[in-house]
């Protein structure tokens, strides 16, 4: 579904990605794990068009989307749930969700998806007129997830959804992501919380300083001595 080949990306003199290649098959939940600064977020930002690649290709469903503008990428069916939630703090919950469906024109479909999101996250329904900035961290993350789903994507990119959340909420959040994937939406998940991500995923890549150094099933990576040593605390 999504294929990245030899992607090179950087900011100024810093090269964040040094020839990264990954594949995401339709219906899978793929995890991209690695330490802080390994290039995980840059990978997602390159896919969605926020960072222009220096070289390499990104293809989605056979179409070349390398360097396409964010709204074009979204139009092809890729939603990006960014790191740090990035809800619009001074807008209401309802307005945030409306922005998720910004490019859609099918009123009935939008209403159905909105009802679905509110059904999935009743807290958001209760607070639909409240400014998003006043929500708790967990609620903001649910809003960011709901907002990404409002574009009715084929593939969702999740960037560090567990960041800064209480442990019980992290658990709930990962189960929501699994549910999204089981309902037929492909997921590419970026996480520092390597163990949780590897347990959750169908397939995983380990990223170190801009390169993929391990690939395999989540279970295989959990069993890998290098992964255990460096990421899972021995």
């Amino acid at each position: 579904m999504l294929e990245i080949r030899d992607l090179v990306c950087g900011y100024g003199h810093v090269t964040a990605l040094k020839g990264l290649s990954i594949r995401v098959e339709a219906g899978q939940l793929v995890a991209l794990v690695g330490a802080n600064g390994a290039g995980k977020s840059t990978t997602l930002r390159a896919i969605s068009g926020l960072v222009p690649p220096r070289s390499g290709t990104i293809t989605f469903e056979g179409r070349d989307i390398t360097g396409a503008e964010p709204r074009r990428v979204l139009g092809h069916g890729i939603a990006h749930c960014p790191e740090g939630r990035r809800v619009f703090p001074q807008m209401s919950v309802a307005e945030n969700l409306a922005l998720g469906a910004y490019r859609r024109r099918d009123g009935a479909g939008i209403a159905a998806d909105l009802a679905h999101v509110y059904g999935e996250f009743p807290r958001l329904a209760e607070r639909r007129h409240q400014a998003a900035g006043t929500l708790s961290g967990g609620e903001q993350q649910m809003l960011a997830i709901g907002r990404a789903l409002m574009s009715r994507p084929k593939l969702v990119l999740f960037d560090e959804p567990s960041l800064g959340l209480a442990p019980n909420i992290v658990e709930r959040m990962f189960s929501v992501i699994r549910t999204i994937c089981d309902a037929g939406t492909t997921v590419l998940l970026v996480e520092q919380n390597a163990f949780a991500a590897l347990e959750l995923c169908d397939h995983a890549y380990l990223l170190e300083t801009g390169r993929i150094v391990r690939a395999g099933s989540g279970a295989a990576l959990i069993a890998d001595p290098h992964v255990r040593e460096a990421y899972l605390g021995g």
Partner: protein
Amino acid sequence: MDQLLQHLVNTLILGGTYALLGIGLTLIFGIMNVVNFTHGALYTMGAYLMYLAVTALGLGFFLALPAAILGGLLLGAVIEFVLLRPLRGSDIDTTMLVMIGAGIVLQSGTLWIFGGVAKSVPTPFPDAPLHLGPVSVSWLRLFVLGAALALIGLTYALINRTRLGLAMRATFQDHDTAALMGVNVRLIYTATFAIGSSLAAAAGALLGPVYVVFPQMGGLAELKAFAIVILGGLGNITGAAIGGFILALAEELGAGYISSGYRDAMGFLIIIAVLVFRPTGLFARAERIG
């Protein structure tokens, strides 16, 4: 007492157009982070477009006003497209210098085309003022107030009630995430600059017929717009609207009770006082565009 009432009525009328000027400038700054040094020139252009539409095109006063506003909208779009779009991402000094240059070009251009002699715009309103008890006000000024309030209301509705406004507010709060939502951020910048410019042109088109139209009229208007924006807090639209009326009040009372020679100094006294005592503006830092 009667004199005070008259000053308050004058404040309302002047304040409406000042608010338009300030809202246009603060909108552009808030969303694009551009200090628009062509704002005064656009105000002047609005007045000249009004003059041309009434005299050369013979459009009639009430059609000439929307035509002048539309002209300001288009001119703003062109300035953004030609000058600001290629400069996106360069540092603020570069952008400011380019905008100062563009302002000079526009002002000198009007001087070159129309000459330095002030023009007056003919209006269809009766010369005799309307008397309301002790207060008298000209029909033209009453129309100016009504039109300014209508345009302020329209701007609010645009920002808070439309899809374009939603995208503008999203871009203001977080342009990267707005792009991820599918917002065409570059188009939002063009639209924002065009709308802000059209408000400056509207203020010029409304005040031009009240006073006279001349190439340098925008200089003072621009400084006043900066005073209003600083007063209301950068990027704060409601602050700019209120700031417009506060500046008008200060000018009216200053001119009436201190000396009419100090009318235009009031704005700068306000800037100095605000910067000393409340550098973020009277109404806190921009909580939101809208």
